[in-house]
């Protein structure tokens, strides 16, 4: 176990900032075997931007929460998370407050739920700086002003005295980002950071996220249901389905030559904003399984247009594909004897 090879690693220099090794999350209360995250392994290099894509129940957000040690009870986490080679939750890192918010920071979909509604922005920002950095009151205040300026808040002095609720969604996300980067983290986990924002504000926040993390060499794990958002931001993309990684690879490679039928369907089922428009949308029947459901063989097989008997019996391993760093968990991937038809344009609910 300690020397288990890490899957999904791309080209990394000087070792990964974060390495996740066979992470699983189990909820005894859900149906099936309750494993809502199954053996997820990934690694992110310094300053690298990696996207984690999946639909509801795919386990993408719980993967992030497991890394942050924020899985609510009665959830159980197994597997290891290494930050710069040091295992989190063991010895000196047993107390999460030693590294959470400092070395690994997180922003969420709705900053209203992560910011304290009863406390002005200023104290919420300086608390981090004073706690993790030991900054004095005045120094922390000055640094907070600098950070708000850096994230494009027009009047930082005024914002420091405001409550979160009076800010717009875009401004709140800027504040959340300012707090997240205030201690210069090694890794920033951004869980659906722009999902609640209008499209023009989304573009602003993504651009800001890219600029601020690039300046500090901060690695980013961007979690999103939207392959469009992820592919415009990340160098590498990981696709999850039913708690497992089903495909991972460099963004270019993954979007131009997806190896897994699920990735292919995700890409095809979004209508294009320009160019040729299909009369009907290619789609896959049915719904993703509920988190924790135990499905024999490949979890995607019941919805898969090319599934054969083997898919319903044997769970496919995440295997390396022809191109460097590209992996897929599909029996058909890379097998030239497996015919891959066009996706149907179904309106069906059930297969």
């Amino acid at each position, binding site marked *: 176990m300690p020397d288990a090879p890490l899957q999904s690693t791309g080209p990394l220099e000087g070792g990964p900032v974060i390495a996740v090794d066979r992470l699983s999350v189990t909820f005894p209360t859900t149906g099936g075997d309750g494993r809502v995250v199954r053996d997820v392994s990934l690694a992110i290099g310094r300053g690298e931007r990696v996207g984690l894509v999946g*639909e*509801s129940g795919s386990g993408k957000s719980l993967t992030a929460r497991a890394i942050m040690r924020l899985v609510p009870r009665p959830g159980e986490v197994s597997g290891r998370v290494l930050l710069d080679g040091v295992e989190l939750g063991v010895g000196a890192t047993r107390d999460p407050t030693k590294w959470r918010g400092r070395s690994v920071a997180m922003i969420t979909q709705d900053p209203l739920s992560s910011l304290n509604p009863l406390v002005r922005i200023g104290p919420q920002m300086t608390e981090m700086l004073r706690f993790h950095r030991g900054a004095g009151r005045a120094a922390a205040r000055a640094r907070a002003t600098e950070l708000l300026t850096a994230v494009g808040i027009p009047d930082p002095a005024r914002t420091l005295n405001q409550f979160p609720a009076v800010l*717009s*969604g*875009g*401004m709140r996300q800027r504040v959340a980002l300012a707090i997240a980067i205030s201690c210069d983290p090694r890794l920033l986990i951004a869980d659906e950071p722009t999902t609640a924002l*209008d*499209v*023009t*504000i*989304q*573009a*602003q926040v*993504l*651009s800001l996220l*890219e*600029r601020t993390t690039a300046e500090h060499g901060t690695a980013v794990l961007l979690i999103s*249901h*939207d*392959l*469009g*958002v992820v*592919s*415009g*931001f990340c160098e590498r993309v990981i696709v999850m389905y039913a708690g497992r990684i089903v495909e991972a690879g460099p963004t270019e490679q993954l*979007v*131009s030559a997806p190896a897994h039928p699920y990735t292919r*369907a*995700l*890409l095809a*089922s*979004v*209508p*294009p*904003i*320009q160019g040729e*428009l*299909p009369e*009907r*949308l*290619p*789609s*896959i*029947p049915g*719904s*993703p399984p509920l988190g924790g459901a135990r499905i024999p063989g490949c979890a995607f097989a019941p*919805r898969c247009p090319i599934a054969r008997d083997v898919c319903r019996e044997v769970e496919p391993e995440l295997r390396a594909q022809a191109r460097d760093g590209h992996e897929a968990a599909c029996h058909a991937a890379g097998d030239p004897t497996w015919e891959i038809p066009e996706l149907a*344009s*179904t*309106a*069906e*609910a*059930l297969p």
Partner: protein
Amino acid sequence: MSQVPTPQQAPTTPPGGAPAGAPAGVHAVEVTDLAVHFRVRRGLGSVHTVRAVDGVSFTVGRGETLGIAGESGSGKSTIARALVQIHRPTAGSMRVGGREAVGLRGSALRAYRRRMQMVYQDPYDSLDPRMNVLRTIGEGLSVRGVARAEHRRQAAELLERVRLPETLLTRYPGQLSGGQRQRVSIARALAVQPEVIVCDEAVAALDVSIRAQILNLLKDIQQDSGISYLFISHDLSTLRFLADRVAIMYLGRIVEHGTATTVFAEPQHPYTQALIAAVPEVRTARVGSRPMLAGEPPDPASPPSGCAFHPRCPRATDVCRTTAPALRRKASGSLAACHHAADAPGGTA
């Protein structure tokens, strides 16, 4: 699908102009100079008027889909809520099936609700958790006066139309997936046999793989039944796929209006152009290299002078700061409210 106008046919009545004088029954919906204003209190005693919708005119043809796009606060959902009589218009006219819908009460209002149904964004909130699918759809059937003995058979037929098995009739919303719930919402709306369904962000809460199924389903239903949709969405890709014509809204007003084909291929208003450019798509340019709109939408309680978009507009000049542009026919064939988009030759809408 025959109602898609060519660029020569005016798709709307121009704001402030007389109704087009089309014979009753041509349009499923004809909205003229609609205004919905709200009085809001800010702090102690100060009352502002928010013009959530102001001088909006459009039509929806029979069997046609009109898409209304815009960001939060643009007024798009207020239009939907005015049409289903949740908000009372401050001014203007809403004709549905040729009959005036503003100011209806009592039995006339109930009759109106039979012609106009709504599908909401969140099927978790819009279905009663204590009612099974049969009762949910049965409510719609009762509105139409269908005898109770007929409910099971007709509800099963409606489920078939939304591609759900009859076995779901006895299930409760909590036992259904998000996609199944939204199909039940559509079946409930269809049970009333309305002329128009208003879809307010009806696919926004669904997962991508489910969204495609529902969009295909909505197209199928329209092709089979000739129903009209007013489809309200912040998602331009969805509107491009589903809508015959689109209206782009900003701060309570339509800033561009035309066939979906033209608006997406040749957007005239800088706001429409910015919205299209901001759509995150696989295979488009990387985040940092995309053109980007600065600033945020202004406070609807104190809108900017002149063109409401001017503080964010890359092309704004002095005239934009002082004079609100009228919605005029542009060279592309669409209507747009911009001083800097070239008018159609000889055309003033």
